[in-house]
């Protein structure tokens, strides 16, 4: 037993060293976010000697932080709520219908998951841009697109869960005279809590960090999301890394806070969402 304990301790030390390596980039960001540009260039590894807090106020201004944060929150919340609503209903329909149509639809949804956005983004501009359907360049259009891209995986996850809910519940509700929608809303939906958590978390993380779709569809600077705005620190500010690090730190804070609030659910969501 003693030997086993020593071995465990050895592996624990190995893991700790690796953890330091994994955390090091973030430590560098923290350290340098309060240095002026000379201090960053001369001594990027050391502790800051003079704390230049103005990096943060400057970064907030440069990237329109509050506006970008608001935009990101808005699009993520709208999109996730809409994905939960649409895909839970679609999954309920598909799980409870034995027609050939529903079987084919389910297959198409599953197959669509390998289509990369890159194969759609070029037609996207023609289809939804000024010379096509002319959707406005704002958070609502963006959320609408996310529903289109998110519905397949989310429906798949809901489908697996709903298939395990006994059909006798639906029957009982129907005999009591409940309409299909009422059955869904009062009987099925309340049982979907765990899978709704999984669907919300997986979609939130992806939508929050997505860069390519908003960079193709959001033209108006006032509408840009946090990842797009963070990109202002590329190139232009490489002479002032202190400022850039402050900006990057600000961009990271919301999602890290979200993680620590929802840690258990996020880990559970990833484990559950990985069942294919």
């Amino acid at each position, binding site marked *: 037993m003693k030997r086993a304990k020593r071995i465990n301790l050895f592996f624990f030390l190995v893991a700790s060293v*690796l953890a330091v390596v994994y955390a090091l980039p973030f430590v560098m960001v923290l350290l340098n976010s309060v240095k002026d540009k000379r201090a960053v260039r001369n*001594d990027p590894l050391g502790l800051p000697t003079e704390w230049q807090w103005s990096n943060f106020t400057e970064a907030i201004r440069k990237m329109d932080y509050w506006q970008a944060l608001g935009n990101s929150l808005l699009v993520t919340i709208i999109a996730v709520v809409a994905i939960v609503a649409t895909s839970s209903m679609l999954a309920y329909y598909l799980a409870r219908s034995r027609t050939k149509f529903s079987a084919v639809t389910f297959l198409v949804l599953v197959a669509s998951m390998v289509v990369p956005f890159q194969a759609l*983004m*070029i037609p996207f501009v023609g289809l939804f841009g000024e010379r096509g359907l002319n959707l406005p360049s704002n958070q609502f259009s963006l959320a609408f697109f996310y529903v*289109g891209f998110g519905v397949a995986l989310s429906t798949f996850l809901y489908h697996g869960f709903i298939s395990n809910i006994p059909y006798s519940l639906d029957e009982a509700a129907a005999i009591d005279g409940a309409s*299909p929608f009422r059955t869904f809303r009062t009987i099925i939906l309340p049982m979907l809590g765990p899978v709704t958590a999984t669907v919300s978390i997986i979609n939130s993380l992806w939508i929050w*960090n997505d860069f390519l779709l908003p960079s193709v569809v959001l033209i108006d600077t006032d509408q840009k999301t946090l990842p797009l705005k*963070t*990109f202002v620190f590329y190139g232009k500010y490489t002479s002032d890394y202190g400022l850039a690090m402050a900006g990057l730190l600000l961009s990271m804070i919301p999602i890290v806070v979200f993680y620590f609030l929802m840690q258990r659910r996020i880990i559970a969501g990833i484990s559950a969402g990985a069942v294919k």
Partner: protein
Amino acid sequence: MEFNVSMRSRRQEVQRFAVFALIPLAIFALVLVVPFVRGVYFTFTDWDGFDVTKVVGFDNYAAVFQDQPFWSSLTLTLAYVGASLVLVNVVAFGLALLVTIPLRGVGALRTTFFIPNLIGGVILGLIWQFLFGQALPVLAESSGIPIFQDNWLLDTNTAFWAMVIVTVWQMSGYMMIIYVTALMSIEPELLEASLIDGTNALQTLVYMKLPLMAQAFTISLFLTMRNAFMGYDLNLALTGGNPYRTTELISMHVFKEAFGFGNFASGQTQAVIMFVVISIAAITQVIVSKRFEIER
């Protein structure tokens, strides 16, 4: 009274469709199916982003097949996918073994390994641009270990490995979670049984744990491959395709071809080829790894 699905009338079926499925499917069709089908059609035309004047058959494909930069980007992407696939999963599995040892504090370790995954590729790319360009060379100088002395992003070869390193750092935590879940779901009785039979730790790992968690490998390999093939933001923020467009992954190549140079038809053709490559790779991978899975 038998009251089952097959007894629903046609009207009820249509009504249910209208209530539950119409809107989700309409959005799915408009956002995903229509652009996809139109996109495939455009590859057979002289589309300029707005109008099609004539159908050109396979001309775009013929042109793309002779396009040297496209092939080097595709080859680079395949190398990147291969390297990421192996390294991300080896590291992730190693981490999973480390953080499942029964000691206090492993929770904090898990969090540390997972955090990079929460953060978007643009931010990670910019952080590592600073590390490779400024911090690591200084560290190399002061510690005397010369490995990161020169900026890795300035040379094609090291810039490629820089992308792989950052990818491993980013993705391994996510795959670690999947492996941890799989490791923890192995019934302890099975492991105890093998312990009584006198197997050592390595034998238990190879003959018991690995086969029992084959499904986790299928999923992780699929996810890693998919993410690596579609990688864009990290590539953009870390190397920007430089030096001299030699580290441009296929995604960025397609983006530049269409939106940078305005070659919409050939950009779309490259995107469709990318889709075909991803599909073939994904299907092959799933078929191959399914063969290792056992029914439980």
